[in-house]
């Protein structure tokens, strides 16, 4: 039962992801872009952040950077969810401190496993 922030600008994907997480029993905070995501990350204690990379305004990397800069949010497990499959991007994401990098389309089984792993104890 974790509090998960979903930062995704594509409406359908955000909705599906939120639905899935809720059906899994988690509580979900939705953000429509990077700025929105940062704001919502500060507002409530979070157990996990799922964040898209390519968004208008702040992209996923910038969001992670900003979160890491703030003591409040720097320890929150962060996962990139992106349609970019370039190996460099995955490595970069992990290097930056993300716990995982999930490529779209993701299957829910794997997603479930990942979330469970990352939110154990929550």
């Amino acid at each position: 039962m974790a509090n998960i922030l979903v930062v995704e600008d594509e409406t359908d994907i955000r909705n599906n992801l939120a639905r899935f997480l809720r059906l899994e029993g988690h509580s979900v905070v939705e953000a429509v872009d990077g700025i929105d995501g940062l704001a919502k990350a500060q507002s409530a204690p979070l157990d996990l952040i799922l964040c898209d990379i390519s968004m208008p305004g702040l992209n996923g990397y910038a969001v992670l950077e900003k979160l890491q800069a703030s003591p409040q949010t720097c320890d929150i497990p962060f996962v990139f969810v992106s349609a970019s499959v370039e190996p460099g991007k995955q490595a970069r994401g992990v290097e930056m401190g993300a716990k995982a990098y999930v490529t779209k389309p993701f299957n829910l089984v794997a997603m479930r496993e990942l979330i469970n792993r990352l939110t154990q104890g929550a």
Partner: protein
Amino acid sequence: MNFSAASWRAVASLRRIPIRLRFYLLAGVNVAMVALLLVLFSRYEAAQENLQDSQTRMQQLDLTLRTLQSDGNRLQALIRQYIDRPEPGAQEAATRLGKSLYDRVGESAMAHADLRGPLQSAQAAVSVLVSSFDHLVTLNTRIQTSYESGILNTGRDASSRFARLSESLTGSQKAQIAKTYEVFVEALLSLNAFYFHPDTANADQARNSLERVEASLNLLSAAAPAGAQRDALLALTARARDIDTSLTRLEQLLLERSGMMRVDVGVSAERLTAISDTLLADNQRRQATLREQHLAERRGVIVILLVLAVLVAGLGLYSSWLIARSVQQPLVELMGSVNALAAGNLHHDVRGADAPDELGTLAQTLQTLKTGALARQQAEAAMRLSEEHYRNVVDNIPETIVIVRGDRMIFANPRATELTGLPTPELLSRPFLSLIHPDDAAMVAERHRRRMSGEPVERYTQFRLLRPGGDFLWVESSAVAVTWDDQPATLAFLGDLTERRRAEESVRAALEQQKELNELRSRFIAMASHEFRTPLSTILSSAELLRDYDDKLPAAEKRDILRGIENGVQRMASLLNDVLTVGRVESGKIEFHPARLTLKTFCQSVIAEVMRSESRQGRGDRQVNLHVEETAAAVLDEQLLRHVLGNLLSNAIKYSPPQGGVQLTVSALAGGIEFTVADGGIGIPDEDLPHLFDTFHRGRNARNVPGTGLGLAIAKKAVEIHGGTIAVDSSVGKGTRVTVTLPAGG
């Protein structure tokens, strides 16, 4: 054999003798000719002399003879003179002359063998004459003696006796004695006369007188007493008788003399005269004959000598001519050859090279020289041709070639002037470093130094050339060390790098562009992948949700989820369409189907479609304002135009803030329609404006906004197919205005 052939053969033979010897021969011939002529002349002279001698001899002989004759005559004259007056002077002279004449005649006889006979006769005659004369002289002497002693002395004696007697007598005796003495004196006078003119009258007279004297004396003596007187008278009478006797003797002598004179002297004198006359006459005749002979001889000699002289001279001159010709002819020929060759006619045939003499050798040498010159000429021609080829290459090589020795260029081909902008003389006069950009000069100088000292050095050097206008030109030099006139130098090709740099630049640019294009393509692929993955993700997650949580999902949620799938599929279909369209556009396979179009309706439908798509992407709240002139109508391809306007509108919406409105304006122009899409969005950076319509291009500030970069490219192509134009006016932060102008068509 005719003359010229003979001459030719003679000349040919002469040419076997070396020229030096020929000249000696010539000298010899001339000397011989002169000598022979001299000999002939001397022969002539000799003949002349002989003649002269002979004549002189003749003349001398004549003279001698004449002298002899005149001397003979003079001798005769002298003798006669002597006979006339027998004085010792005349005798001496005659004797002397006679002797000398005798001697001289003897000499002449010895000298003139042919006249010896007559001359000896003459000499004999002279001898006879002389001896006759001698006899005559002796006789004269005897006569004189006889007269002087017999008559004169006796007469004187008698005279003195008479005188004495007369003294001793007196009277009539004295008178008788005196008278007798007178008669005695008459007798003496007659005797004297007889002595000097011995004619009988004087003799008779004398005798007569003497007889009277004798008679008288006899009388006297008979009458005179014995004694002194008588003795004296007897003595006188004796004397008278002596005188008479002497007279008789004198008469005899005189007779003898006369006979001698007449005979001995006269005859021999006549003889002498005759001989000498004969001699003289003969001599004269002979002289005349001889002169004739000599003259004839001389004429003959002259003729012969003349002929010989002409022959000798002719031969001499001919030989000289041959010898001269043997030198002159080949010499002239050689001169001709030399002139021809000097004038440049190297194909002239040098003749006479086979002759055995020096001129033949010279001709041979000339031939060799000619061959050499010809070969050299051909070599030169070949070399000139080769040089021409090389020069052709060097001059036309579209590269600059220079040779640098020391600190300046010593050779620059014509292209160098084009490259450097300086005429060749100036190029060669300046230090080459002065032509190089100061920033590059040090490097160029260093490399040059290393090359000149044999150190390894880069072959290619790039530097800037300073041009007269102050601008510079990038060149690349390819240099090697060479030897030029035995000195180290650098041979360098200078190539204008401008083109190459530009080419490199353009290649780099093309590569850049290609890279960019590849990048864009990669990005497109990434983006396309991203774009495809997004709806795929929606579809998959939707499907999985429906599958796994079917029972837990309310119907409204399920409908949402299904709509999500629908959206995703449509989005993918649209994307695929775009990609395919781009492909078609790139390969030029777009079809153009113009049709009459009602613009207002059309625009409204386009706007509706765009809004549908945008709202699917969460931008359903945007506004598009449409303004269409009622009269606007056109014949256009609907599908293409739909692409264009759809793309422009969706761009305007995508890149604009929510509150910013988008304006679509359609107006009619002369012969065309103008569509304008304006927004107040993020604008397009200046650097992206030129690349706006490039396939896959995405503005730098649009990286984070989903998009394929295909839309504008397709739009531009579509506009072009209509024959229209598309223009963009934009600045960052202020918005964008895109204007499409299409011909009305129809």
